[in-house]
């Protein structure tokens, strides 16, 4: 099933162009790196604030409202460029261990964010500024840093297993 979809994607004209053109894959990958470093760099700013380590004089909600729009834009573009890269060698990526780990960690990062959003983040008004952040927020931030670090490591690793 997964292989059938992958094969179909890989046979599209767009995927064929990316796979065979001399510049398609490298340029898309270059932009993928720019967007993913933006995602992780901006998320780190938020996570370090949630850990109560940096920017403690500014409120959590101020930081999230300033930083997260950049994160979401960059994430959408990273997903788009990542999707294009995936298409070009879809049948190899679906069976690739580091690729699967990267997707798993991406799902973990998403789930972590949703859980945080519906639990600790609801009471943000009571710990927005001037007090230590609650333990639940710190755990969510630490997990986020861990998952995104893993996403980078496995993402880089894919380059050594799928050529």
């Amino acid at each position, binding site marked *: 099933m997964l292989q059938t979809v992958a094969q179909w994607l890989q046979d599209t004209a767009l995927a064929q162009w990316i796979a065979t053109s001399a510049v398609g894959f*490298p340029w898309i*990958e*270059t932009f993928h*790196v*720019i967007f*993913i*470093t*933006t995602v*992780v*760099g*901006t*998320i*780190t*700013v938020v996570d370090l604030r949630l850990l109560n380590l*940096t*920017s403690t004089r*500014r409120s959590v909600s101020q930081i999230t409202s*300033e*930083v997260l729009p*950049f994160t979401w834009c960059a994430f959408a573009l990273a997903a788009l460029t990542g999707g294009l890269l995936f298409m070009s060698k879809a049948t190899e990526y679906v069976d690739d261990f580091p690729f699967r780990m990267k997707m798993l960690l991406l799902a973990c990062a998403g789930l972590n964010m949703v859980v945080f959003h519906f639990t600790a983040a609801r009471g943000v008004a009571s710990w927005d500024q001037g007090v230590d952040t609650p333990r639940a927020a710190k755990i969510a931030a630490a997990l986020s840093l861990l998952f995104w*670090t893993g996403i*980078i*490591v496995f993402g*880089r*690793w894919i380059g*050594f297993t799928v050529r």
Partner: protein
Amino acid sequence: MEQAIAAFCDWLSATPISLTIQSVLWIIPVIQSIHIIAVTLIVGAVLMVDMKLLGVVGRDMPISGATRRFLPWVWVAVVVLLLTGSVLTVAEPRRELINNVFRLKMLLVLAACALTGGFQIIVSRNAEAWGDQPSNQWSARAVAIISLALWVGIIMCGRWIAYVEHG
């Protein structure tokens, strides 16, 4: 000059440390991963400072506040990048040192560090002039745009080192 660099590369790649890095499979992927994580710190910090300079974020905060808060991270990351980059260069000297994209990347790194360091010093010496509503708003915007262009260029070169022919 090119010949001397080539001779140096061949000497370096035959040293025990280079041979070790080349033969232990996990070293290069791990070092590259640390390199990219350090790049994310720079992107996050630089983006926040430059967006402040462009007036997009932190309107209630002085520019000197943003530079004090974020620019130290850039320097920590730059040190990590130089160290991890050196390991990668020792492992495969010709891939880096006889490569025009790598040379361009190093020029851009020098320019970005000079701009960031220079700007940091100028702001810290006269924090009041770089308050919420700086009188030199247009120079602040120019610094932001040049800085973003330099760092994006550095990332682009970094990825393309792997794709161009080297000596």
